[in-house]
């Protein structure tokens, strides 16, 4: 670089003063640089955000996990007095999907909790129909069965083949249930296993032609090639051959003759208890959770305040007029108490406010007064503008606009009314992100307006207050309308700009809410 050697004292002083000048960048600048040069290691705040979101999702998932909930419930009731199952409701019937079998004489199922079979083809069939280990983990065994099954080898050992036994579930309503074609949980059910229902042993068979599951009553097993079962239509009938399509073959099953499957009272109680408390959890939100959509046309006012003035009202130095705003939102409502609903959602807001000004033929130099973030002292920031607050070639209306996205969180309280017609009041707090807009700042001498969007506060908070009348139809749809006041809690522009602007929206809200089932 060729340095200028004949620099005069003015230039030298200019350079010296300029070199002395320092500014301290915002932290976000380093974060951006860091994220750019280390793309694989985003700034910890990102990781922290993801972690927090993950924890929230996990918490939500665990709180709505009906299987675990049922498991916990069943566990809590292991030592309690058992309750009989309600035969009129859908229940879960436990099936024996993996059976401990060998070529040794078996003992009654109820006594040692095993069923004993022999025959290689049967074994092969069983192996092909193993269920996933996930099912095993989600099950709660009766105490004595767990003892029997623990530690059992799952592989062939000479003539013996031992499978760990566990219980799976099939939802059965009366004698027929809905098609299982699209339900991955039920597709895995290997049919034709002994099951226990209302103190009886049943076999559930899969009828591929009809794509339905039916259950059969099994009274006992009498011979190698014939299983004495109940028919599909008459549970008391005998000598019905199973429909085995790739499942168990009756010819391959051999058991000890005349061996009756008997359950102990404890096992019966556990089965019924299990069935009772593992019914599908009702949707807590069904009929309560409402999906709401609304829009609110409004009139936007603003209040200006000079933070370092001597008490003069800056609003008198400007010619300004309210303009219109619009709010569109969608969200959910949920009753937490009688007459009290919480709600949240997402909404978009547009605000506008007008200032009367004049345009000039060319831009002029002016300043806006900012407050230093380091010394907290005001200083002039130089700008150029063609908009005058005093006079000019032609009059112009300056539109101060913002486009916002908010996350309102709040509640509605019923004041009066009946089931269908109500008068409510509501309030929300609305963390807001300002996506963009236009801002015309008043110059330090109040003679000019400067278009300046770089000082726009991107984060803000609004508060909403409303009262409304709602009418609920018989179909669960609620219409509401009423006045709304929305107040901006922090200044539109950066705190560094000495003139604060806060917007007040006076609107009329129209909403519709549909209950979700």
């Amino acid at each position, binding site marked *: 670089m060729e340095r*200028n050697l004949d620099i005069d004292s003015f230039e030298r*002083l200019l*350079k010296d003063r300029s070199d002395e000048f320092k500014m301290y960048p915002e932290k976000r600048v380093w974060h951006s640089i860091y994220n750019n040069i280390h793309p694989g290691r985003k700034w910890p705040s990102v990781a922290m955000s993801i972690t927090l979101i993950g924890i929230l999702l996990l918490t939500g998932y665990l709180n709505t996990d009906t299987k675990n909930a049922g498991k916990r419930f069943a566990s809590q009731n292991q030592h309690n007095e058992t309750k009989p199952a309600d035969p009129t409701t859908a229940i879960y019937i436990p099936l024996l999907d993996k059976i401990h079998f060998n070529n040794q004489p078996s003992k009654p199922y109820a006594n040692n909790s095993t069923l004993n079979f022999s025959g290689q083809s049967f074994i092969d069939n069983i192996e092909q129909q193993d269920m996933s280990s996930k099912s095993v983990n989600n099950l709660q065994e009766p105490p004595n069965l767990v003892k029997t099954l623990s530690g059992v080898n799952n592989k062939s050992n000479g003539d013996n083949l031992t499978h760990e036994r566990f219980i799976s579930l099939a939802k059965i309503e009366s004698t027929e249930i809905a098609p299982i074609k699209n339900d991955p949980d039920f597709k895995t059910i290997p049919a034709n296993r002994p099951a226990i229902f209302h103190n009886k042993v049943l076999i559930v068979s899969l009828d591929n032609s009809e794509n339905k599951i039916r259950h059969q009553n099994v009274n006992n097993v009498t011979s190698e090639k014939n299983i004495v079962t109940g028919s599909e239509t008459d549970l008391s009938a005998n000598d019905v051959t199973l429909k085995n399509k790739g499942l168990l073959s009756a010819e391959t099953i051999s058991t000890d003759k005349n061996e009756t499957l008997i359950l102990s009272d404890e096992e019966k109680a556990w089965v019924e208890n299990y069935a009772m408390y593992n019914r599908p959890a009702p949707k807590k939100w069904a009929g309560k959770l409402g999906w709401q959509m609304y829009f609110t046309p409004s009139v936007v006012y603003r209040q200006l305040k000079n933070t370092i003035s001597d008490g003069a009202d800056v609003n008198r130095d400007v010619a300004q007029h309210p303009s219109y705003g619009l709010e569109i939102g969608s969200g959910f409502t949920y009753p937490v108490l009688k007459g009290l609903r919480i709600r949240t959602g997402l909404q978009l807001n547009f605000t506008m406010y007008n200032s009367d000004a004049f345009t000039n033929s060319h831009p002029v130099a002016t*300043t806006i007064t900012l407050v230093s973030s380091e010394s907290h002292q005001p200083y002039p920031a130089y700008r150029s503008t063609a908009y005058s607050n005093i006079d000019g070639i032609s009059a112009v209306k300056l539109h101060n606009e913002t486009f916002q996205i908010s996350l309102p969180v709040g509640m509605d309280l019923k004041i009066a009314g009946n089931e269908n017609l109500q008068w409510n009041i509501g309030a929300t707090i609305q963390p807001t992100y300002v996506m963009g807009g236009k801002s015309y700042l008043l110059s*330090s*001498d109040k003679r000019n307006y400067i278009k300046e969007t770089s000082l726009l506060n991107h984060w803000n908070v609004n508060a909403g207050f409303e009262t409304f009348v709602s009418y609920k139809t018989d179909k669960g749809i609620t219409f509401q309308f009423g006045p709304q006041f929305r107040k901006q809690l922090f200044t539109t522009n950066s705190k560094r700009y000495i003139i604060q602007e806060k917007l007040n929206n006076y609107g009329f809200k129209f909403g519709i809410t549909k209950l979700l089932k």
Partner: protein
Amino acid sequence: MTEETMLNGCLENNAAAQEALYMRLSPKMLGVCYRFAKNREDAEDMLQEGFIKVFAQIHQYRNEGALEGWIRRIVVHTCINILKKNKKFSDSVDINYANGIGIREETIPSIMQAKQVVECIRLLPVGYRTVLNLYAVEGYSHKEIGDMLDIEESTSRSQYTRAKAMLEDILIKKNILLKPRTKSGVALTGAIASN
């Protein structure tokens, strides 16, 4: 952390070393960017892009001259590139009209002199301001400036002469410089000259 340690760390893409280097030099470099930029936000964008280039090209530093000077050149070039990209040179201010408006001193409290000088530089039209920054402050020759800004060397000289005259007028009008000009230029006011 010494400069050598920081440099070695940066060569190994060590985040702590990079942050240390950034923390040490970013205030001064943001001051450089601010003289070229329209506002603080633009200056921070320039600084960000400049330091990204610094860390990406740190292996090209040959220990010939101060590290700070090498980084400063990258930052200055980044500022120029951004200004050219955004076509900022077409934006100008009628400085005569600006002088007519003036600045009401009672609304502008006294602040650091360095900042006053910088703010006066920033009052210049962007073309003048850029040439003045590059020549008088950064020490580039008119030929280099011509190459950087895609203008003739003579254009750089004439722009600089006008920029300097305008800046002097502004400084005098703001009582930062005293009239009349001395043989060697103009005298600064006592407040600044004593510093």
